[in-house]
């Protein structure tokens, strides 16, 4: 019997991943073109959660827009509140009492830790460490949610900050609970690291995968941990200090390779830095008013303002235009996760389907913010 050599012709085919797929962290569709298992092209398709928040805001008062901002990146509502309030305060020239600034910083940093816990936990889920790490991280996030619950009675959409301050002062039980949290949290972060930092499977799956080179990261306007993991030391808390961030000492963790592993490491290190800021903020927290005198209906002078903060997922900004009335004439959100998606195709090309889930998870997006 003789053997015969046969050439089989293969051709790329299209697979839709999502919109309702457990690894898409929401409703997001990746229209992938595959050659066997290898990704040839990936086209992101979204808009399934588009609620027209930018249009809705044009019909509301400046104060009435705050609940809308909760519903942008719902894993970091406090940060959204803060960015929006900063933009309105800039537009209308409203002062904020010092105690309120400290409370805002405490809330924003707690929110950063809570958000990174979910980001890292979900990313490890995507890596195949199914459910074990994320349960550890949700355990700690619960404690932060309890703290938020104390100050505003909410666990997800806080609506806590107001233009000119915050809605109410900290309750008596908050400070001891925060002290306890600050004492325990470093140990928990060390626990994650013992469990995962040198984990062989994680290293094999995440190191060198989904590289975003430094030049490209800047060119696509990436921000937050995605930009810093590519080796750019750029953090708005340091580069363009808002609120009272110029008073605190902290480091900016950066990666070097810009791969999935670096993005994961940057987030873990940022949690440690946030704890440092929280310690300092707690020490310096002054007594006093938590809200300045602001009219019920704010009528900022005709003009425009852009206020931005370093949210957990990157540069979150609000561009507001006022025509002198009680409602914003234009309300634009600079959504960090939307812009971080720009280079997704470049990061995924050439990797396998299993890596696609991982690369997507490492960017840490929130679809409610992408679609708005």
């Amino acid at each position, binding site marked *: 019997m003789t053997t015969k050599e046969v050439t089989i012709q293969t051709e790329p085919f299209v697979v839709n991943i999502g919109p309702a797929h457990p690894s898409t962290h929401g409703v997001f569709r990746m229209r992938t073109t595959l050659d066997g298992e290898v990704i040839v092209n990936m086209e992101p398709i979204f808009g399934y959660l588009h609620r027209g928040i930018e249009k809705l805001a044009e019909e509301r008062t400046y104060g009435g827009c705050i609940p809308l901002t909760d519903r942008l990146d719902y894993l970091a509502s406090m940060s959204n509140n803060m960015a929006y309030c900063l933009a309105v305060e800039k537009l209308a020239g409203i002062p904020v009492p010092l105690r309120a600034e400290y409370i805002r910083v405490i809330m924003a940093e707690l929110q950063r830790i809570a958000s990174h816990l979910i980001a890292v936990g979900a990313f490890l889920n995507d890596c195949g460490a199914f459910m074990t790490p994320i349960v550890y991280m949700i355990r700690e996030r619960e404690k932060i949610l309890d703290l938020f619950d104390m100050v505003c009675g909410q666990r997800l959409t806080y609506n806590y900050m107001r233009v000119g301050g915050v809605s109410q002062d900290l309750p008596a039980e908050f400070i001891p609970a925060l002290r306890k949290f600050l004492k325990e949290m470093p140990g928990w972060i060390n626990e994650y690291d013992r469990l995962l930092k040198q984990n062989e499977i994680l290293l094999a799956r995440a190191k060198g995968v989904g590289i975003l080179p430094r030049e490209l990261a800047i060119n696509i*306007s990436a921000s937050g941990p995605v930009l810093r993991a590519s080796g*750019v030391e750029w953090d708005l808390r340091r580069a363009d*200090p808002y609120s009272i961030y110029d008073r605190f000492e902290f480091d900016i963790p950066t990666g070097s390779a810009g791969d999935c592993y670096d993005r994961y490491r940057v987030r873990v290190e940022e949690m440690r830095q946030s704890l440092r800021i929280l310690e300092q903020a707690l020490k310096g927290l002054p007594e006093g008013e938590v809200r300045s005198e602001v009219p019920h209906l704010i009528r900022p002078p005709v003009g425009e303002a*852009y206020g931005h903060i370093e949210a957990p997922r990157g540069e979150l900004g609000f*561009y507001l235009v006022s025509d002198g009335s009680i409602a914003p004439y234009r309300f634009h959100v600079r959504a960090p996760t939307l*812009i971080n998606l*720009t280079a997704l195709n470049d990061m995924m090309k050439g990797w396998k389907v299993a890596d696609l889930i991982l690369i997507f998870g490492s960017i840490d997006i929130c679809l409610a913010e992408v679609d708005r």
Partner: protein
Amino acid sequence: MTVALSGSKIAKQLGKKFPGAVIKAGADSLLLKGESLLAVAEYLKTTPDLDFDFLNYITAVDYYDYFEVVYQFTSLKHNHGLVLKVRCYDRENPTLPSVVSLWRGADLQEREIYDLLGISFEGHPNLRRIVLWEGFDGHPLRKDFL
């Protein structure tokens, strides 16, 4: 602190190279002619002492008489910023040059503006609707939509 560069200073610098490109210089912004946007943007990006390598955001506003598209740039190296504005007076078919060739970060944002305000960007590699579906009637963020 990110320093906002003075618009009139930059306008002076641009005046020699691009006569007539700047319509108005604000405190931290420049109002440009639409057709000179791309050339000025390239100059801002490639000149070493300006070095605007980071595009913060693009957005557009409907002022009834015209659309205003706003670009904010930052230089990560020098830590300074500048805002560029361009106006579009045509309501039927507003068109501007795309800056995707210089800053790829503009890609999804220009698509969003095209989707929600109906401004076309010439030279964009993939100008399609982004959050609404193909065939949707109108552009919701226009003031005459609702």
